[in-house]
């Protein structure tokens, strides 16, 4: 069987046992399977009998998240873990194919990085320009210092208009702000219109992945959620049917909603335009159907001009899912005739992060999710194991700026293999920042905890060398970065802080592993 008509050689498979025997999704006119949106290039199917979905990290209040405990439960759910690993790896391979098809790819990454660094270094100027342009276009602009202020502003806008229901497209920022929980508390119905985000909302879970919120769930999990919340048949696990159940249930809510909300992928300073990318067209429905559109915008989303937007858009979907564009790229510049458009510009810790010498470039992130797809820890532990809005490699460097104590353990959930850095479309040195966060945690006297976390991470990832090798084996880029991996896993880092980086070793990972495994196991 030719799995993907455009791939001449079959895509490498990590777990043959979760490869299905047929494509169930959309096909082209000649009957060949289509591979776009978040679709897979090979059919991936967790086997029955139904395995209950492993849940995310347990809520420990403000105490450090125990990511490893949740990861162990995810790994124990072998069907979920394998399907998840396979699917994310498939996205990574699709990304590689799209990237390699553009000769200018590396130039584009460098440009994107430079544009973002310039915009961040001059952010106050560009924010002012963006605001002035938006106001001139008839947009009402609000500023929110933190999550609570964001939620209050939106609530006030809705209250003043007597709005009782709000349809929205997916926004990591509103997840970060705890927006749905807040609105539930004040009696306003929030309806997520992205299929994956809606599944997560109905199941009272956070998104597990920035572009695939329900990527950790099997069809049986979704059928169970819809049966419980939408009254569908729990035994009907046909995926087109499940998608249709959601479409039919959500559409009346879209038509009667009092207000609409979107996030913002890019904010163009010169014109005051908000740009939103979706595959479902749900941002366009949310913004264009009700009489009020509110866009929540993180301050770091600013780019100077449209010519820069072209650079980012040519990178974003290719790097996220391997397609030249998302299905919809929407530009909101001014309110529709007879309607209102409001921007809520949100800081929530970003301006403080801007002042952190080692960490400010994390603000360049355009939320493509590629670092998650390539990360061996993420792929095998699931996004919800991180117990935070942002998971995976980018998450573990963003989260500590939101709550230093709660997320102090997350920088240890990495092998520091550097693959995240290599796939980042805006060249964030993710693995170096992960390492730098570990140093911060040790300098802040979180050392006893940190060391025990370190040991758990090592034990958990490295005790499964066959799987780890399988994952890395297909990633040439990651293999090239093995010196970083070795450096990162040197326990001496903490006992001898002034130590310089060792020379890059010539031995292979496996050679290193054979030498060090005993030491790893007997360490405290």
């Amino acid at each position, binding site marked *: 069987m030719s799995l993907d008509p455009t791939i001449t050689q079959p895509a490498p498979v990590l777990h043959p046992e979760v490869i299905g025997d047929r494509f169930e999704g959309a096909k082209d006119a000649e009957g060949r399977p289509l591979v776009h949106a978040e679709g897979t290039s090979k059919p*991936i199917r967790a086997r029955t009998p139904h395995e209950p979905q492993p849940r995310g990290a347990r809520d420990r209040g403000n105490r450090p998240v125990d990511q490893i405990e949740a990861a162990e439960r995810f790994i124990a759910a072998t069907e979920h873990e394998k399907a998840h690993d396979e699917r994310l790896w498939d996205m990574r391979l699709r990304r590689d194919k799209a990237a390699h098809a553009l000769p200018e790819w590396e130039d584009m990454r460098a440009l994107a990085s430079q544009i973002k660094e310039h915009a961040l*270094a001059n952010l106050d100027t560009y924010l002012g320009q963006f605001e002035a342009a938006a106001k001139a276009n008839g947009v009402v602009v609000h500023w929110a210092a933190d999550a609570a202020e964001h939620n209050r502003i939106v609530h006030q806008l809705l209250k003043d208009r007597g709005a009782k229901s709000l349809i929205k497209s997916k926004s990591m920022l509103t997840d970060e702000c705890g927006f749905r929980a807040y609105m539930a508390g004040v009696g306003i119905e929030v309806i997520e219109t992205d299929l994956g985000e809606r599944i997560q909302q109905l199941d009272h879970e956070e998104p597990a992945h920035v572009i695939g919120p329900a990527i950790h769930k099997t069809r049986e999990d979704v059928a169970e959620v819809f049966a419980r919340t939408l009254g569908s048949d729990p035994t009907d696990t046909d995926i087109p049917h499940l998608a249709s159940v959601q479409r039919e249930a959500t559409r009346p809510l879209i038509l009667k909603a009092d207000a609409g909300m979107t996030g913002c992928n890019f904010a163009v300073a010169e014109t005051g335009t908000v740009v939103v990318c979706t595959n479902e067209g749900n941002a366009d429905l949310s913004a264009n159907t009700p009489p009020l559109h509110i866009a929540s915008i993180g301050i770091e989303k600013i780019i100077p001009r449209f010519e820069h937007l072209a650079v980012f858009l040519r990178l974003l979907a290719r790097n996220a899912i391997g397609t030249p564009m998302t299905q919809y790229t929407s530009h909101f510049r001014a309110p529709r005739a007879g309607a209102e458009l409001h921007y809520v510009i949100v800081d929530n810790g970003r301006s403080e992060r801007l002042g952190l010498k080692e960490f400010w470039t994390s603000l360049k992130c355009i939320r493509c999710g590629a670092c998650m797809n390539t990360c061996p820890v993420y792929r095998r532990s699931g996004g919800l194991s991180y117990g935070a809005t942002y998971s995976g490699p980018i998450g573990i460097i963003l989260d500590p700026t939101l709550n230093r104590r709660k997320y102090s353990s997350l920088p240890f959930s990495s092998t520091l293999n550097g693959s995240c850095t290599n796939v980042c479309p805006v060249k964030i040195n993710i693995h170096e920042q992960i390492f730098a966060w570990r140093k911060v945690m040790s300098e802040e006297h979180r050392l006893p905890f940190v060391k025990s976390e370190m040991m758990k991470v090592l034990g958990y990832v490295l005790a499964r060398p066959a799987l780890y090798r399988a994952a890395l084996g297909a990633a040439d880029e990651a293999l090239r970065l093995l010196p970083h991996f070795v450096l990162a896993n040197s326990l001496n880092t903490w006992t001898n802080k002034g130590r310089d980086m060792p020379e890059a070793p010539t031995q292979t990972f496996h050679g290193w592993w054979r030498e060090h495994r005993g030491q790893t196991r007997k360490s405290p």
Partner: protein
Amino acid sequence: MSGREDILARVHRNRPAGDYALPLIPHFDIPGTEQGRLETFSRALEAMGGRFRRSSEMSSPLAWIRENIPNARIICSAVPEVPSDREWSAVRKPQDLADVDVAVVRAVLGVAESGSVLFTEAELKVNTLAYLAQHLVVLLDEGAIVPGLQDAYTHPVFRSARYAVFHTGPSATADIEGVLIHGAQGVRSLTVIADG
């Protein structure tokens, strides 16, 4: 609004030191578009789940719709080439288009690189037309296909339109087990008919 001043002051105070110059953006050529853009466009569109037809293949766009979307009861057309079952004067609010089976719209331009078509509120008349309808049929002037996204963004509509949107194939999701579904929330199909 003190929040605004506080945020801008913090941003100013914490801005990274150093010279981060804005780079010049070179123009990147899209391979294959020197000879003809239509072929690149149609291939990209079909890979994104869209259909591509030429007006020369059909007696009229309406005849094509009747033949290929046989159950369509309400056709709502925003173009003079196709008669509209829905009187535009009767459309008072965005929700009034919820029962439309087929929407017909002309694109501002097409992008060969990605198979995208561009609309603004001027082409859509009511923006929800392109999302609440079950199917979308797009008329595209062959001469309005630009090579790449960089070229598209030089179009003046991005400075004048309230709303501008690229559609690249139909509404799609693969949020459940990576199985690709068309018609996640918006249109179930998108067909571009090239003319001119």
